[in-house]
Each structure stands twice: as C-alpha cells, then as structure tokens.
C-alpha cells in the first residue's frame, strides 16, 4: 500500500458527521455540550480537532463510538455515517462491530486506561477474541506480534507484564497495539500525548503516522496543542463552545485563519521559529455557560472584533475558498469589514 490522497470508492468520505447535537442532564440543568458539529474524514487522512478544554471535543468523538453514558447524555440530533451507513444508535455497520472493529480509540491517560489486573498481552488479545473468534493462545501470539509492531522491546516478555510495570509512553504504544489488532478503518485519538513527556509525544505521533501509512486508516486527532496539529493534520476543525467555528485544510486554517478564535489560539501558542517570535497573548475570559448558550456568537465577550450583531444573532457559516469554512459575522457582506485586512498576516 502506498500513501495517497485519492478519493476512495464512490467518492463518499469514509466518515461523515453532520449537525451532531449532544446534551447532558445534570443537577444544574441541561448542558448543551455539542451544538451542531459537522466534519468528515477520508482514508489516509488526519483530521485534527482543536479547542480549549470543555468545548465538546471528547463528547463529539465519544458520540460516534456510542460511548456517551445515557443517561445523563442524549444525542438530540445529527448523524454520523461510516461509508454512508449510520452509526449513531447502532453497534454494527455492514455486519461489523463499530466499536473495536471499525473504529478504534485511544485515550488521554494511558496510566488509567488499561485494566490494572490484566496482562498487557491479554488486553491486546481481547479484541481479536471478541471480533475475530481467535482462540486465547492464537490471540496472545498475535498480541506479541502487535507489541513488536508498535516498537516495544522484548515483546514476548512485556506481553506477560501488567500495566504498572510499563512507563506512560510504553502504555500508549500498547494502547495503539490494542486498537490496531482488528485493523480499524478509523483511529480516534483523544489527546493521546497530553499526559506524556515532549520527547515521548513525538515518538507516539511518529508511530501513529507510520501505522497510518501502512494500514491506510483515517485518524481523528483531538488536541489543544497547535504544534501537534501542524505536525500531523491534513484537515483541521476548530471547536468553540460546542460548535465548529472554523474548518479547512491545515494550510488554510493555519496561514489563512478566518476566525478570531483561531487567531487567538495562534497568538497564545509559543513558536520555535525565532523569525516569528511574538509576545504570547493568552485569550482573556472564559467560554460561555453551556447551560444557557448565548443568543449570538459564543466568542463575543472575548472577541476583539465583536460588533453589535455578534451578541444578538448566531453568525452564519461562510464558505471562503474551497471547503475552508468559518462561522463569523466579519465575513458577512454587510459587516463592511474585510477580515483579511484585520488579522490575516499572509493575505491570500
């Protein structure tokens, strides 16, 4: 197999999420955690979902996997389609289990995400027994091979050890081996490197990219680290307060940012490049209360470019260039402002 960006099959994307809405009933009221999220991802592609914590990234991907605890959670609208087949509310598509077989997921904290009283090998072998009908011993042998594939030294010995005998980085490799066992078509990685050292982070990301090249799987990578986005992503979805506020190719979102929040994120990020050194500028304020989402743009109180209309009505989505999309009143013809001239350093 070779890496490429050609469209597969009939031209429908591998995974499409449309207008996803998720709520949680809590003692304090109903939280509208996800308020109409759409994106799609193709084979061999990496989609990064960025945004500050609490903006609904995890809830979005867990909804696709059917991992939202119900109650308190509730998917109130939207669809998620894998090769055109609905996955929401279902456990299989086309006779294959969604969880584990079609879509695999790795989590933020590898230390707590593995069963402390089960050997690593048994945990990696488990999906093979469940989805492929392997015998326990065949599955274990295959688990050792997968551990090797994920570059954990002394695979046979490591397979018989328990999670507490592993370092964080090695555990995340084991998680990847586990997810890979049934060759899923989509890998969801929810902040896979946030809990790890910087050098280990890079190794894990490299491993994911390498395995993507070999298997052709799509990756949905959740992160709030723009450095990770720049390194990995083909496509980027910027989320804010339960919505996607900007969406497009990594180049578009980075170099032709079309939403004030994206610009804010960039200014708050340290950069290695001395030529582009800048004073770090954190975004002041905090996201809106999702118990009672505002009538207008959720970013309004923090936005340096906010206008009268912003606090009154939801901004519409604007398609800018190709499939580059931003949801901001500045792009409206009547705003009388040219976003490019306000915050685009590299005008198109």
């Amino acid at each position: 197999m070779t890496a490429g960006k050609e469209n597969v099959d009939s031209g429908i994307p591998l995974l499409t999420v449309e207008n996803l809405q998720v709520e949680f009933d809590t003692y304090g009221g109903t939280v509208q955690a996800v308020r109409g999220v759409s994106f799609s991802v193709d084979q061999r592609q990496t989609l990064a979902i960025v945004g500050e914590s609490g903006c609904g990234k995890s809830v979005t991907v867990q909804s696709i996997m059917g991992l939202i605890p119900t109650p308190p959670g509730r998917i109130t609208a939207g669809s998620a389609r894998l090769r055109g087949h609905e996955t929401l509310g279902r456990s299989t598509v086309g006779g294959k289990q969604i969880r584990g077989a079609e879509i695999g997921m790795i989590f933020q904290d590898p230390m707590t995400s593995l069963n402390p009283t089960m050997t690593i090998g048994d945990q990696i072998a488990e999906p093979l027994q469940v989805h492929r009908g392997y015998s326990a011993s065949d599955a274990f042998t295959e688990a050792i091979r997968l551990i090797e594939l994920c570059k954990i030294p002394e695979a046979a010995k490591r397979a018989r050890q328990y999670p507490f005998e592993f370092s964080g980085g090695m555990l995340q490799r084991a998680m990847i081996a586990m997810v890979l066992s049934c060759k899923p078509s989509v890998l969801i990685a929810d902040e896979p490197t946030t809990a790890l050292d910087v050098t280990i982070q890079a190794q894990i990301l490299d491993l994911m990219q390498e395995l993507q090249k070999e298997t052709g799987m799509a990756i949905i990578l959740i992160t709030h680290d723009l450095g990770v986005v720049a390194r990995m992503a083909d496509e980027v979805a910027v989320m804010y307060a339960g919505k996607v506020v900007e969406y497009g190719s990594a180049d578009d979102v980075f170099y032709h940012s079309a939403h004030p929040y994206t610009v804010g994120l960039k200014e708050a990020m340290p950069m290695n490049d001395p030529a582009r050194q800048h004073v770090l500028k954190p975004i002041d304020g905090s996201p809106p209360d999702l118990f009672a989402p505002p009538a207008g743009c959720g970013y309004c109180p923090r936005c340096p470019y906010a206008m009268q209309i912003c606090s009154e009505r939801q901004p519409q989505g604007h398609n800018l260039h190709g499939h580059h999309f931003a949801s901001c009143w500045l792009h409206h013809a009547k705003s009388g402002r040219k976003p490019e001239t306000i915050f685009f350093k590299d005008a198109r």
Partner: protein
Amino acid sequence: MWLYILKRALQGIITVWFIATATFFAMHNVPGDPLTNDRAMTETTRANLESKYGLDQPITTQYLIFLRNLSRGDFGISFVQENREVNDIIREHFPVSAILGVLAVVFAAIGGVLFGALTALYRNRLPDYLIMFLVILGISVPSFVVAALGQLSLVSLNTLMGFTVLPVAGWGTVMHMLVPALVLGLSTMAYLTRLMRSSMLEVTSSDYVRTAKSKGVPPTRIFTRHQLRNAILPVVTVLGPAIAAITTGGFVVELVFAIPGLGRYFVEAVQQLDYTVIMGTTVFYGAFLVFMVILVDVVYGFIDPRVRLDL
C-alpha cells in the same frame, strides 16, 4: 513471595507473644484468683493448692514458666474442671467454632460480593433500594437480636410445616449449621455488600472499563473480566478484620443456638477466672486470627499483581 510469607510469619509470632504477655499480666491484675469461690477454705488447703498450681511463686517466675510451656504448645490444666487439659478443651471444641466461623465468612463474602455487584448493576432502581434497606438493617441490628429472631423464625417454620425442616438448636449435621452461620455472617455480609457496591460503581466509571467498551467487548465479558476482579480488591483487604469480627461474634451465636463451640468455655473461664483456660483460649484465638489475616494478605497478593512484586 516466599520471603514475604516468612517475614509475615515472624511478625505473626511476635504479635502472638505480645497478646500472650498482655493477657497474662492483665489477668494477674484482676482482683481475686481461681481459688476464690463460695467454698470456705482453710489457710493450709489454700497454701497447698497455691503451691500445687505455682501461684505462690513471684509473678515474673510464673510468667517465665508460662512462656516456656507456651513455646511447647502446652497450656496447662484447668483450675475449675479438675484434671482437664486446656489443650483437650481446645481440641474438642475449637473445630466446631471454626466450622461455624468459616461457613459464616463464606456466606458473608459470597453474599456481599453478589449483592454488592447486583446493587451496583441496578443502581438507583428497585433491587438496589431493597437490598440497601436490608443492609442498613443488617448493620444496625445487634447479633443477639438477629440470633434470637433467626431461632424464632426457625420455630415458626417448623410449626407451620408440621415437621422439623431445620433443627432449632444443637450441633451435628449440616442442617444444624446453616442458620447459625447465616446469622453469624449477616452483619459482615451487610458491610461487605456496601463496600462492594461502592467499589463496583467506582470501577464501572473507570477509564479502563471505558477502554474495554471502546474495544467492543460485550457487557457480560466486561463484567467478568474487567469489573469483578478489580472491584473485589477492597473486599479482600477487609476480609481479615471481618474474620476477626465473625469469630468474636461467634460466642453469642453459640450460646443462643446451644452449639458446643469454644466460645462458651471462653466466657465461662473469664467468669471463673480460670487462668489457664483464659490464657489458652485467648492465645489460641489470637494465633488463629493472626494466621487468617496473613492468609488473606497472601491471597490478596495473588489477585492484585501490583502487590505481588512489592512483597
């Protein structure tokens, strides 16, 4: 692992020695002695008896003799029951207490794990409310009340059926053991149920159970492979103290159900200040409990791999 067991055994021996010493001095500080009773006794008779039992020796000498005999496993002869060796009393009556206790612990552990898991599974639904109501009852009602109620319901049952379904008191067959063991284990079962419930709930919302779900593992397999073993750990840690609680609680149950266990002798010996029997039974119970606690810890090491390596 072996090193660990050896270490724990040494600690155990020191603990037993400590129990023996404390009991010895506590007892000799109680006013009166085994020869004080209603019968009038001349000075000479008393002196003769005292010298026969060594009671005229200084207390340190008595202590050393006691320790020497103890190290040989000889607890001496009862003061009250003429010519009866303490070892014979223990040999004859301890097995009864042990069977009752072990059966009670088994009831408590199995019931606690089962009901605890059940309440967690049906959290905030009818089975949960029902069992938790019973648990609160089981924890708050004292064992002599439960024992009496248990016996009373046996009587009613037998009268209702017109024949003896289960014997009301006594000892001998499995039928005699069931209800007393259940009564004896009840409060521990209630306590373990509550512990298992909260432990199970914690495990259910853990990251690794979410991982198992995301792998597509079916719920029954998640329950058996991922939840049960982890949830059971806190229950196993309290099993040592639970055994202690059940063993001491056994005295009451033995009295109510007229079971010829060691408990009755222990209580009678204390009332009559029968030095050797008190010493013998106390030290023996102490050693038994220490052994059970060590056993539980070793079993824990087999269930939890994290402990296994530290040992």
